[in-house]
Every structure is written in C-alpha cells, then in structure tokens.
C-alpha cells in the first residue's frame, strides 16, 4: 500500500464534527515532522497534492470527496428499496458532483503553481473540516437537484421493470483511482465493492453513468476474481421497452445528443438513446456535424480536478458545437458532461438537460 499519510496532512484528524472548533491543531506528518517544514523541504506540485487528498479520501470513506454514506443515499428517501437481485447501482457520481464543485472552484481560483489558497483548502480536510462540511450550505441546493436526477432514473426504470432494487449503502466504483494511476488502491477498492455485491445477493447490476458501466463491464473483470455479475446500462434496458413508456412532448421540440466519450467510443452505446428518442412523440433529433462514436467531443471533465480552466474552455467549445445542430435542447448521458455543459451553456441560449430528466418530463399523464 502507498503510505499516503506520510505526505498528506492527516494526523490530527477529528472524526467528530462537533469538534471542528478545535481546528488550530498543529499539522504533523506521521514521521512527526511538521507538514509546513516538510513542504518547504520537499515541494510538490499542487496536482500531486490534490490527487493525494482525493486518494486519501477514497481510503477513508470510499469516495474521493469524503461524503458520508447518509448523504450519498439521501436520494432514496421515501423510495421503496426492494429486495430483488436486480440492482440499480448509482455509482454515486451524480451525488458527488455538488461536493466536487467547491474543490474545482478553489483550484480554478488558485491556479496550479504554488497556491496558498489551494493548500488552505486541502489542509482544512486534514483538520477533519473537509470540503463537505465546509461547503455544506453551498451545495445543499445542488444536492437536491442531483438527488432528484438519480431518483428519476430509478422511477423511470421501474416503469419498465418493477422489481429493480437498490442497495442501502451506495458504492462508488473507484474510477478515479483507476484514472489517476493508483492501481493497487483501485484493486483493493474494487474487491471491496465486489464483495458487497456478493454479500447482498446481487446478480444483475444496472448502471446509470458511463464510468460505472466501463468500470464494471470492462475493467473489474480483469482485476477482481469472480466478478461475474451481469452488467446492464440503463439505456440498454430502456431501449428494449421504449415503446411501453408512451413518451410524448407537449410542444414539438428539437433535441441533440451529446455522446459521452466513454459511453460512445469505449462502450459503443450510441444508437440506444437515439432509438429511445425516436419513440418520443413530437421530438425531432438533430445531430451535430461531428458526432456519435467516432467524433463526439469531450466535455473536458476528466481534467477538471487539475485544470478546471481548460475544462471550462473545452465545454464552452462543445456547447458551441452542440448549438450548431440547431436544436433547442442538448441531452446529456453522463453526470459530469451534464454539469460541465450546463454551466458552459448558461448564456448560450441552448438548454442542457439530463436525458432521463427529459424523458421523465415526457411521460404522458
């Protein structure tokens, strides 16, 4: 295992939130050396600091921003859990976004070369006063929005398959560890996730994000023995039953699809959302010139944690491309694409909507 605690600021961690007032504790590394001294002696790039902070969170809480299990499962309040072996695994990505945003904002403001602001943000985490609690009030509104999107996925899917259950504890597949190159940590995490699925008697996993799908379908089987679950993406399931959904829009509407890179190029799920849209009465699909599996353009999300300024530039360019389709609405199929394009489109006149959000509004009453 990587001894992350030697280089991050986790020594005087306060697990009890009520003790956050004691935040003026001295930071020490596990070797007993003051972190400030250590950083002076051994400067590391902010990129490494951010990465280590996120990886460290993964180890402690199972997700990169240290969000509590309660918060990750709060979308399901008032929804019946069900007990079948067919399970919707949200992958936590929608729920995590509101907690990522404050970090991204800090990185954006501080730049990537020597940043006191960034150090300050990361150190707060070291004191146990993490982004989550610090920005709780800021992110509450966003949390409601993203929780609602997750809920809509389940409710829509239950219209075609009633017995879909979900787990009491939400599991993050660990894509970030894999992407950052922390293979040992990833494999350890993946084994835990797989074990939980087994213990809960899961047979089929329904994913709602491209990354979860890619992790479970392509990556996990290479690293976790006996990862033999059937993996289904919600778009595959909905395509089968699209006509049963009886979907329609009140006014004729033109839409375009932003294909996420991983879903289109890596997982080859391209025609499914188009087939579903085809079944929605009153919807006209207009494609952007360079689209689908080969040419869809990235929204910029993969580098958001390190280079949010570039992400912003990339998503603005993408919004411009999507507008060229001449549609009223651009539909997204990934929580990260959704957030970036929605932010980038605010003054563009193009409405960016989550695919399932759009479909849910098309259910004929």
């Amino acid at each position, binding site marked *: 295992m*990587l*001894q992350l605690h*030697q*280089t991050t600021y986790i020594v005087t961690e306060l697990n009890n939130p009520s003790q956050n007032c004691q935040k003026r504790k001295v930071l020490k590394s596990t070797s007993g050396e003051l972190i400030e001294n250590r950083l002076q002696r051994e*400067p*590391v*790039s902010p*990129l*490494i600091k951010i990465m280590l902070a996120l990886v460290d969170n993964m180890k402690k809480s199972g997700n990169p921003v240290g969000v509590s299990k309660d918060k990750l499962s709060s979308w399901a309040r008032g929804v019946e859990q069900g007990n079948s072996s067919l399970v919707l695994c949200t992958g936590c990505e929608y729920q995590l976004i509101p907690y990522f945003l404050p970090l991204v904002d800090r990185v954006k403001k501080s*730049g*990537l*070369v*020597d940043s006191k602001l960034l150090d300050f943000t990361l150190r707060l985490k070291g004191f146990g006063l993490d982004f989550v609690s610090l920005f709780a009030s800021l992110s509450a509104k966003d949390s409601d929005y993203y929780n609602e999107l997750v809920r809509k996925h389940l409710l829509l899917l239950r219209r075609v398959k009633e017995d879909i259950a979900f787990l009491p504890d939400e599991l993050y597949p660990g894509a970030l560890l*894999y*992407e*950052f*190159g*922390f*293979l040992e940590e990833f494999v350890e995490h993946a084994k835990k996730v797989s074990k939980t699925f087994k213990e809960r008697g899961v047979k089929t996993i329904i994913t709602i994000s491209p990354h979860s799908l890619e992790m479970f379908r392509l990556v996990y089987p290479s690293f976790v023995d006996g990862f033999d679950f059937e993996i289904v993406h919600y778009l595959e399931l909905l395509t089968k039953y699209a006509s049963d959904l009886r979907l329609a829009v009140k006014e004729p509407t033109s839409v375009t699809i932003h294909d996420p*890179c991983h879903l289109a*190029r*890596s997982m080859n799920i391209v025609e499914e959302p188009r087939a579903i849209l085809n079944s929605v009465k009153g919807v006209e699909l207009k494609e952007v010139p*360079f689209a689908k599996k*080969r*040419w*869809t*353009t*990235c929204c*910029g999300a*993969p*580098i958001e944690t*390190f*280079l949010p*300024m*570039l992400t912003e*530039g*990339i998503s603005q*360019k*993408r919004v411009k491309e999507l507008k060229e389709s001449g549609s009223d609405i651009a539909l997204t199929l990934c929580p990260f694409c959704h957030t970036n394009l929605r932010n980038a489109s605010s003054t563009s006149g193009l409405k960016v909507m989550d695919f399932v959000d759009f479909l849910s509004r098309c259910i004929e009453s």
Partner: protein
Amino acid sequence: MKAAFDEYYHRLMEAFQNESIALAIERATASYRKNVTNALTKYPHTVKLAKEVRSIKERSVDRWEDLLKEAMDNIISNNGQAYFAKTAGDAKKIIGDLVGREKVVVKSKSLTSEEIGLRQHLESLGNEVWETDLGEFIIQLLDEEPMHILSPAIHVPREEVAKLFSNVMKESIPADIQKEVGAARRFLRNKYISADVGISGANIVSADTGAVFVLENEGNARLVTGLPEEHIVLVGIEKLVPTLADAFKVAEVTWRYAQYVIPSYMSLIGGPSKTGDIEKVITYGAHGPKEYHVVFIDNGRSELAKDPDLKEALYCLRCGGCMYECPVFSLVGGRFGHKYFIGYGAAWELAVSGLKWAAPIAYTCLRCDRCKERCPVEINTAKIVLRIRRLFVDKYRSSK
C-alpha cells in the same frame, strides 16, 4: 519534479490565455478535416492500407536492431556513412564533429532535431544555422518552440509574420501571405547557395536498400538535401521498415493522413551524388552532396520498444492528424506537450526527457480517445497515458 510541473503549467496557462492560438487552431482544424476527408474519399484504399502500415510498424519496431544493422550496412555499401547514436549527446557530438565550426548550415524540418536541440548546439559551436521550412523559420526568428509537428508556426498570424520579416530582412514586408512567402524565399535562397552543410530528418528508412524518404511540400528539403556539398540525415530508429515496398506504403498513408492527396515532393535518397559519365568511372559529388551521412538515434526509443503499452507511440507516422482532434490541443496547441505533443507524446517525452516531463502531460490528457479515431495506425493514447500515470504513482510511492 515540481519545477517541471510548474514550468509546464505556467506555459500551458500562458497559451490558454492567448486567444489567438485557439482561433488559429479552430480554423486549421476545419480546413484539415475538409482536406483529409477529400483525400480519403478520392483514395479510399488508404484506410485499408493504413491497417497494413500498422502491421508493418509493429513488425519493424519489434526488430529494430536487425533492421538498423541491415540499413547501416546498405548505406555504407552505397558510399554513405552511417552512425548509431545511443543518446542525444552522442548524436550532437557526431553531427557537431561532421559540421565543424564557422560553417553555414541549412536545415529542413525535423522533429528529431528539435528533440535534441541540434540547431542550438551547432550555433553554440559557432555555426550559422538556418531553418528553411517556412513555419520553422518563423519559429526560429521568434525564438520560440514549435506549436504543431507539421505546422510549427500555426499560432502566428500574418500580421505578426510581416512585422517579424520586416525587422529581420530590413525591408518593409506587407501582411500579405503571398508576399511574405516570397520574402522568405528570397532571403533563404542565398543561404542554400552559401551553405556548407544541409541537415534533414527522414520520414522513413528502408532497411533493404538503406534508402531514406523525405516528404515535403515546400521544396526546401530538396534544396537542403541537394545543394550543399555535405548532407547529414538525423533519423530515429523507429523510422526503419524492412523493404522499399513497405516504405512506399508508409509514405502514402503518411501524406494522406497529413491531409494531402499527394505531396509536392518525396525525395528518395540512397547515397551521395555520383556520376559515371566520363569513362564510366564512378565519381562522387556531381551536382549534389559529395558527402552523405545518416545518423540513427535511439535516445530512449529502444526502452519504449520493450514496453507492450508504450511501444505503440513508436508507430507514429507524424502525420499530425491527431492534434486537430484533441480538445486540449484546440485551446493551447503544442503547450500541451514539451518536445512532443498531446497524450501519446507523453510516451515520447518519457523516452527523451524522462518522467518529470511525461507526467504533467499524461495528467493533462482527457483520455477521450478521439485522437485514436483519427490516427492511421490507431495508437492507443488512453492506454499509454494510463501506463505513464501508473509509472508516476509508482515512482512517487518508491521515493517516499
């Protein structure tokens, strides 16, 4: 390690704030996509040929040592000289010794010479060195580093070129592209004629003949390789292919994916200039170079060749198509890179500059895979980048 990260990010952000870069690349991308589509539509067999070229490159990289030996033997038997430089330092030493001091040197575009800082090295020995590719010439005058492998000055608008040329050539050059091109032609013509040495790169080398292929459009490489008395080729070992027939296939795919139906010129150089016209006595240095030297360089390439994930980077034909499809490149151009650009360039950077330069590039890549869609030999950048990130994490792990 931190210094490299900091310098990289500083340059990256500087480029990001320069809006003219994004604008220039947006225009270039639209034009590239149109041209490459036309070229591939007119010659649809190219797509299939590209698959064959991938397999030629796979086989060649795996047995580069055999091919190198064969090529060197053939170059020598054709009355050229062949050298193998293990490192950048070795290559600079060999070429520095061949050129000597106080010479006039003309160069055609070569990414490999950028890689080792050849121009700066020869200048430091007291030589006058001129880049003759128009884009490289502009970059040299600006004292900058290239922004793209085929169009190094892609970010410099005509107005800036006019100012620069007027200043250097001591005459008023208007911001008219035709006139700017004419001015560069007049200025450089004298340099070719007075040059003692011409230095070029090479796109391909066929081992069975030792023949070197140089693709170009401007015609400057013809003059560089044909006019001076001495011609030196600097070429990476990854450019070796087994046969002349293979080399032609690689050449056609390269220029087609570089957006050309046919390039203006392809020079096939097999040895020094020679004649047998008087009494059938072979005499060297007829109209072209009397001396011909080929310097093969490793500089980390053989290490890449050993790695199952990273060796794909060596298949690169340098068509430059991937860069037009990269969303990060579209904003910052070649500053998404160091000596080599964009995601797959991280492998090259690892080979030639080490992990400290490769890592920040690897962590800038989106791993969105669109470059692979464009790449004629389908280089798997996402895999390369992931491998380098893992190497970086492992290195960090072991250093603590």
